[in-house]
Structure formats: structure tokens, C-alpha cells
């Protein structure tokens, strides 16, 4: 437990430092801040992975939990989601080297990790029988990977809104010249969402198959199921409007942000509405 907490606190400190570097880079012209952000983030992701590994070791001490991922508690799920956001950003950043986006995405990873450390109970418990299925290692992991990508898209969308505001303002600040063009941000936002959408869809379908195997129905209109469908429909709406209506820029970002609000509600809020999926709030 000590090792797990030490590593996750280190990851939190590194994410916070990387966020600081990203913010400094936002207002400076020195590329070294961006480089340091990436380095600190990389080490932070490694620490977080180490913490996850230490947690797995503890989790597997209970025989019934053996070979399952420890994401059945609020701490485990939130920590994993923050790790996925950070890792997804690391991959996107290495691919696109926009540098500036760290200021918008990394706070999400830092806040998620911080919330897990401060508010959630890190103790490991035995899995209830319903979660002792191989789907436990697939269905939530796939969905959280999609959520992490949507988190990155949210950061990109935020940057787009700021850039547009800067361009329209009479006195654009230095920030305007640091941020990528609106078209570039819009394309990146679209690319991330388009990559995440089939993953979200696959995750929802997997949940249906698991529900059929465990409870005898593919779809039961449980709050979690319904809100994940709402999320998928909102992102489908975004993609549809972009492809069919050519929706771009600010309006497209508003739709994607509405969909991301639904992601947040699906992850946090619905746990208090759903009995079947209430395990995150220890109600299931």
C-alpha cells in the first residue's frame, strides 16, 4: 500500500510539474519548457504505471481477484482513467508535437490523480461475483480508453475556443501566436474523436454481451447503459454534423464539449443513479 501511494503521489507531483511547464511554455517562446513537459510527463506516466502495478500486486493477494484489473473501486477507476488521459496525451503529443496542448489536457490528468489520492479509498477489496468475469478486464478498460481520448479532445477543443477568441479580439495576446491554427485544432479534435468513437461503441457492445451472459439481457436501460448511449449518440451527432453538414470550428467544439460533459456524467454522476453499475460508489 505504501509503495502504491508513494508512486501515485510522485506521479501526481510530476503531472502537476508538467502542467506548470506546459503553462510556462504557453506564455514563453522557449521550446525547452515543452521538452521538459514531455520528459516529466513520461516519468509521471511510468510512476503511475508503477503504482498501478503495486496495486495489482495487492489486489491479487485475494485469490478471487487473481488476473483481474483493480478498477472495481472509485480509487482504481479514477486512477486508471487519469493514467489513460496522461498516456493518451503522451502518445498524441509525441505524434503531433504541438507542445501547447499540455496546458489544456494535463490539468485533467493531474486533477483526476489528485482526486483519487485525496478523496478515494485506496484499499483493495474482493470482487463481487458479478465482476468475476473476463469481461472485467475488457469492457471497462476499453470504455476508459475511449473516455481518456475524449478528455484529450476536450483539451484540444478548449484550445480552439481560446484561439478563436484571440483571433476575434482586437488585441490578440502572445497566446494567439503560440496556439496552432483553428483549422489544425479542429482537425485534431475531429481525429481524436473519430478514433475514440468506435472504441466507445465497441465498449458499449461488449457491456451488452457481458450483461447478457450475467443477467440475461443485452440492454436493460440501466442509468449507466443509458448515459453511455447518450454519450455515443452525442458524439455520433458531432460526427454526423461534421460529415453531412460540414460543421467546423466553434459550433462543432460546442457539440463535442456537450458530449464530453455526458462522458463526465456517465463516469461520475451515474454511479449514484445506477444500482447495477454502482460499484464505483460502493453501492453495487
Amino acid at each position, binding site marked *: 500500500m505504501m509503495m502504491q501511494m508513494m508512486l501515485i503521489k510522485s506521479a501526481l507531483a510530476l503531472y502537476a510539474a508538467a502542467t506548470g511547464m506546459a503553462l510556462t511554455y504557453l506564455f514563453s517562446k522557449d521550446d525547452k519548457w515543452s521538452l521538459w513537459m514531455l520528459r516529466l510527463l513520461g516519468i509521471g506516466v511510468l510512476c503511475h504505471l508503477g503504482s498501478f502495478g503495486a496495486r495489482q500486486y495487492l489486489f491479487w493477494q*485475494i485469490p*478471487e481477484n487473481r488476473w483481474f484489473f483493480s478498477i472495481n473501486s472509485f480509487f482504481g477507476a479514477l486512477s486508471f482513467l487519469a493514467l489513460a488521459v496522461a498516456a493518451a496525451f503522451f502518445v498524441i503529443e509525441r505524434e503531433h508535437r504541438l507542445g501547447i496542448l499540455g496546458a489544456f489536457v494535463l490539468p485533467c490528468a493531474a486533477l483526476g490523480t489528485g482526486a483519487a489520492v485525496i478523496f478515494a479509498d485506496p484499499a483493495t*477489496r*474482493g*470482487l*463481487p*461475483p*458479478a465482476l*468475476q*468475469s473476463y469481461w472485467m478486464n475488457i469492457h471497462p478498460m476499453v470504455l476508459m480508453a475511449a473516455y481518456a481520448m475524449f478528455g484529450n479532445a476536450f483539451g484540444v477543443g478548449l484550445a480552439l475556443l481560446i484561439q478563436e477568441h484571440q483571433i476575434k479580439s482586437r488585441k490578440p495576446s502572445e497566446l494567439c501566436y503560440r496556439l496552432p491554427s483553428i*483549422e*489544425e485544432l479542429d*482537425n485534431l479534435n*475531429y481525429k481524436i474523436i*473519430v478514433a475514440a*468513437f*468506435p472504441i466507445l*461503441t*465497441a465498449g458499449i*457492445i461488449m457491456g*451488452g*454481451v457481458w450483461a*447478457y*451472459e*450475467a*443477467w*440475461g*439481457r*443485452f*440492454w*436493460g*436501460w*440501466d*442509468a449507466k447503459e*443509458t*448515459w453511455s*448511449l*447518450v454519450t455515443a*449518440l*452525442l458524439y*455520433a*451527432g458531432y*460526427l*454526423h*454534423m461534421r*460529415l*453531412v*453538414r460540414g460543421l467546423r470550428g466553434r459550433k462543432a467544439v460546442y457539440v463535442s464539449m456537450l458530449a464530453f460533459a455526458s462522458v463526465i456524467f456517465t463516469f461520475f454522476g*451515474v454511479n449514484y*443513479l*445506477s*444500482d447495477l453499475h454502482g460499484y464505483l460508489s460502493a453501492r453495487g
Partner: protein
Amino acid sequence: MTKLFRSVRFNIFLGAAITLAAAVGTLIPQLGEAPEKAAAFQGAHPQWSRLFDFFGFFDLYHAWWFMGLLGLMALDIVLCQLWSPPPQFACEEEASSRSSRKEATLRRNPHQALFASRLPLERAFAQAQRGLAAQGYRIAADFATPAGAAFVATKHGLQRWGSYLAHIAFVVILAGALVKGIFGFVEMVPVMEGRSQALQHKPQWELFVDKFSVKYYDGTREPKDFASRLRVKQGGALLAQKTIRVNAPLDIQGVRFYQATWGAGGDFRSVTLKAGDVFTELPRHARRRIAGTPFEVEADVMMPNFTAEDGGPATASLDLDNPAVRFIFHGGARKIRPLWLFENDPQHCLVEGEDGALTHAPKPPFELAAIDPVLFSGIQVAYDPGYKIVLAGSGLWLIGTIMLFYLHRRRLWVIVEPQGGASCVSVGGWSSRGAQDFEAEFGLLMERLRAEMEPRSDLALSRNPLPEAS
């Protein structure tokens, strides 16, 4: 009317209405999922309840108007797809030999390239086709132009099927749900351990629970496993038997038996009483003197989760959270009122009056050490013939969206014209990806094609470069 159904705005409105309704349904307690919460809400908000009841909000996902919205969406998709037939495997429009139109199309393309080749017309034409085929392009059509020859090459043409599949998938999913609604069933069958129960929907089938077991994590009431040894018989003949667990149901001809829940109905085999260091086992309804005491008692009633309701004994649930047993005293000179003893709290003792009222009493010289309850196993029996249809629809939806969003159609129009003994090659490109994304790919592709076609920079082009795309 047809215009209305085909309009994107109507589709968006319909989708938004379904999304909003689905979201609202999660905020109002639903009768099917949480009947107690729905009843509590109705009791607390009678005014709202009447309104919600009228619109079917307490069973929103089965309300006529919600089903109507889903049906309208399905109808809309069917009509839209009828008006827009599925794409053909071959590019019919390219098969046309209207070369002038093709050339005009080429000139309208956002991506254009023009270069000279040392190769004569026929060899340049064949080399261009080979070069693009090597890059994964399919030659969709070739035709003659007034001055030379042209062809159309495509890549990832399957993308056009993506939208079609994704929309059809929605109808397939709804069809699966309809099949389930008409032919399927779900019933909860609580069966006491060692007993049997006939199914409502399959009355000729009898379900036996030979053994039910539950295991808890050490020091907690959190279950780590619960299982039932099941037998299903039809007219005395054994159909199947299996020990079922959560996630491991029994399947007989598509009818699946799930381990859903368990509980204690109040029945028990025996209790163990402790007086000092001496234990006495007492079967239910058997009179027996407790060793080490002068009392002869009988255990007759058990409450799995004891609570005092209206002053009298009751159970808050069927979970063994606070099990208590009532003991009736027999014999002796003095009449003693029935006592309630608690397994989890040996110091606690209640006496039941003639009117059923409970009052605290001093602890007797014995305590309730253990109860051997007869548990019931809650078996959910479900038959869903629409499952595979829904699954197929979901798969179609996934494949459709992947084709639609991951594949990007590319189309190239290539015109080769003779220029002395050499050729002039004009290429126009289009992609379903954004122009910016395709720009770099098109540039690289043209660089490769040009290199394969023995370019010559010394040859002056006989025609002006292609105009900029508007």
C-alpha cells in the same frame, strides 16, 4: 412529407428527442428497475406523480411515445435508405465514357499535379495504372479523351458502405428488440434449497435447486461466490443439470437460467443455543430442554433482517443482515412470554407481548449461537431470441462506423496526352478526408508516380498547368 423524412434537421431533432428522453428516464425512478424507489417518489410527490404517470415517465422506456420515437427513427432510416439505394461495388459514373465531363471533374479537384514523361502515350498510360495499383488504388474505369486517354483510380471505396451499414444496423437492432418483446420472456423464480418450482412461461419444465451455497470474504458480509446446483426436468425426464453461478448460466434450447440473487425467507433447519460452555442444537418446532438450564423451549419463527415495525417484529429485507429467532417457553410453573434472540448481538433480547408489542428484556441464561437457515436461490430465467439479431446489428453498427470514419475514400482522375514522342500527365485528386490531410499524401503519391514514369524536366509542356481549384 417525404422532404420532412429526408431532412437532416428532422433526423437531428428525432435523435435529440430520443437522447433527451433516455436521459430523463435515468433521473426518474423506473418501475421495472427500482419499484420501491418509484413508489417512494409517488408517495412524496403526488402532484408530479399524476403528471409523470400520464406520460408514462415511471416506465419511460416502454412508454408508447418513446417506442413511437424509436419506431419513427427506424421508419425514417428505412425510407431514407430506400430513397438512397446502396452504393454499387463498381463506380458506375466512372464507367461512363463522357470524357469531357471527366476532364472537367479533374480540373475542379482540390489536388492537382501536372508533369511530363519520356514514355510514349500507351506506355505512360500503362505505367501510371501500374504505379497507382502498387499504391493500393483500383482502376475503376478508363476511357479515351479527345487528345489522349484517361482513367479513374479509387482507394477505400468501401467507405461509401459505412453510412449505409450504420443506418441499417439501427433498424436491425430495433428488429432484434421487437423479436425479444414478442417471443422472449424473463421471469424470476425463487426456489428454496431442496425444493422445486415450475416455470410460468414453460409450465412443463420443473426447476430443482438441489443445493445452494454462498461464501463470504473473511470477516465481512460481502459475498465472494454463490452458486446453485440445478436440475431441470420435463415430465419426470431430466433435461439438464449444472451448478450455475453469476456469469455462468445454464442454457437449455436458448432458455437461460441465471444465478441472480438469494435470500432467506424465514425458514430454518435448526438453531444452536449456548448456555455457559454447553451447546444445544434445536431443530425448528422441536421442544427441547437447553442443557445447563431449566428451560424447555421451541424455536418457531426467524426474521432474516429483524426490525420492529409498528412495534411488532418484521424483517427489513430477505438478507441475513440481522437474523433473529423467536423462542417459546414450555412447561415450568411460571409463564414466560416468547423471546427474540439475535445471532449477531447475543446481549440483545426482546420480549413479545400478547398484542405482539416488543419490549426490552434482560438477557436470559442462554444465547443464540448459530442459525442454520434454509436459503432460497433467486434464478432468473430468460429467453431472448432477439439477442443474436441485436448482436448482429451492433456488429454492423461498429463495422459501419469504422468503415465510415476510419476508411477515407480517395479518387484520382489521370489524363495522359501525347506530346511529341513523350507524354503529358495530368492528375486530379479528391479524398473524403479534409483537403489539408490529403495534401501531404497526394504530394508524396505524385512524387512516386512521377519518379516511376521517367520524368523529363527539359520537355516543355504543350499546355498550361491546370487551373487552381475553385
